[in-house]
């Protein structure tokens, strides 16, 4: 299972590689058996891809989902309903999946309730950590047991047990360049930390949070994706006001919010595919 910490910290999750002595990683039994890189469930095809022909430090895998039109899977915070894909990894000793680098999601309105997720095709990049004292064998097998929820207006769960074996077959090797490009493209959609010059702050007033993000220039549009569950009422409309040097977003509080958080964390998506992680102290 992916560590919950990694899940919550999303793309900033960094493996302590030095602490990953051989055997200390969550390595599963390496009984090479039959298996496939690809799997499927209703309305969903899923595939394990890699950016390397030869495994080693710095490599990334990708979980590539291909969805029927109108169907979606979920971001880390799924919004009003649903849930993110979950992966149980099995790696050789001394190596491990660091966690998913989640691309910025879309806001998906399903009959007035709002989900955060992905349509069509999405690649979830997964960095692989290798302990410093480990030599990665050429003969290297990764297993991923994937469970997901896919929804349109309806929801259908799916699961697949995927296996990727190195050395790759000739047919697979010929695809690595394309896979690498897909993984890199997905990484380009992962939110970046907000520039140090930005200032984000939030005000809690009654039923709303008002977030001001000063980016240094007027922004016309933005969508905020809360990182934490149950802080924001996901289906409430986000009222956006351009500011002279940034933008203001008003959010309705969640009915499940017990007390205001010290910091509202999330992603600010701006036009042009610009997505940044922000933390707005709440006062």
């Amino acid at each position: 299972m992916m560590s919950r910490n990694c899940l919550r910290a999303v793309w900033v999750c960094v493996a302590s590689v030095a602490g990953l002595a051989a055997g200390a990683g969550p390595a599963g039994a390496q009984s090479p058996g039959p298996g496939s890189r690809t799997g499927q469930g209703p309305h969903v095809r899923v595939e394990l891809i890699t950016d390397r022909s030869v495994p080693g430090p710095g490599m990334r895998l990708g979980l590539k989902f291909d969805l029927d039109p109108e169907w979606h899977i979920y971001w880390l915070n799924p919004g009003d309903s649903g849930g993110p894909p979950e992966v149980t990894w099995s790696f050789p000793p001394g190596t491990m999946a660091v966690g998913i680098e989640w691309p910025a999601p879309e806001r998906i309105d399903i009959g007035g309730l709002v989900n955060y997720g992905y349509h069509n095709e999405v690649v979830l990049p997964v960095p692989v950590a290798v302990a410093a004292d480990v030599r990665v064998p050429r003969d290297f097998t990764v297993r991923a047991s994937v469970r997901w929820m896919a929804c349109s207006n309806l929801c259908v769960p799916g699961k697949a047990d995927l296996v990727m074996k190195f050395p790759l077959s000739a047919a697979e090797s010929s695809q690595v360049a394309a896979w690498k490009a897909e993984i890199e493209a997905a990484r380009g959609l992962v939110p970046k930390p907000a520039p140090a010059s930005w200032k984000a702050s939030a005000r809690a007033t009654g039923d709303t949070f008002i977030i001001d993000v000063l980016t240094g220039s007027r922004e016309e549009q933005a969508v905020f994706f809360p990182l934490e569950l149950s802080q924001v009422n996901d289906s409430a409309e986000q009222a956006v006001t351009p500011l002279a040097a940034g933008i203001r977003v008003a959010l309705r509080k969640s009915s499940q919010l017990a007390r205001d958080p010290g910091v509202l964390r999330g992603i600010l998506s701006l036009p042009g595919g610009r997505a940044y992680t922000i933390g707005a102290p709440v006062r």
Partner: protein
Amino acid sequence: MKKTTIVAAALALAVAAAPITTHASRVGAPAPDFKGTDSKGKVHNLSDFKGKWVVLEWHNEGCPYVKKHYGGNNMQKLQQQWTAKGVVWLTVLSSAAGQQGYMGPAQADAYFAQKNAAPSAVLLDPSGAIGRLYDAKTTPHMFVINPDGILVYNGAIDDKPTSDQADLATASNYVSAALTEGMAGRPVTTATSRPYGCGIKYAK
């Protein structure tokens, strides 16, 4: 600059934000009263149940998360266990006509009998009025109301937000915990959680 602009914008927003209604389903506040018709045609008001513990359970038979709890006999056991202790358990169907989970009275009775379900009543809410009043998001979504009519729990049924029946064995049930603590006169430790499940198929 611009300071004036910002202040002006802030004022404009404060005005705009003011009319937003307060949460109808805020824990610690009175649970909003409602009038609903059950599958037998009987009309219930929440206020009819003053003096009793009330559980509201949002339901959609086709939702994989609901199937987890009914296929695993988990919801039925909870209904039996708590109604035996005098709790009023209301299962609410807020799917609009034509949407997954919508049922007419006869269909609902046949379905819940076949599932060996034991709610006190099944409220048919195809207009979504009760669901929207409570800001119910998912199936299931659970609410617990104390004998004084105060909402003491709003959220998920348990702490395993999956559709996998295997997770029932290790789940910690928030509704049972709220009722157990509440009946013992103790504050509810987990009074809110994120409801998990399928989005409710409300009337557009």
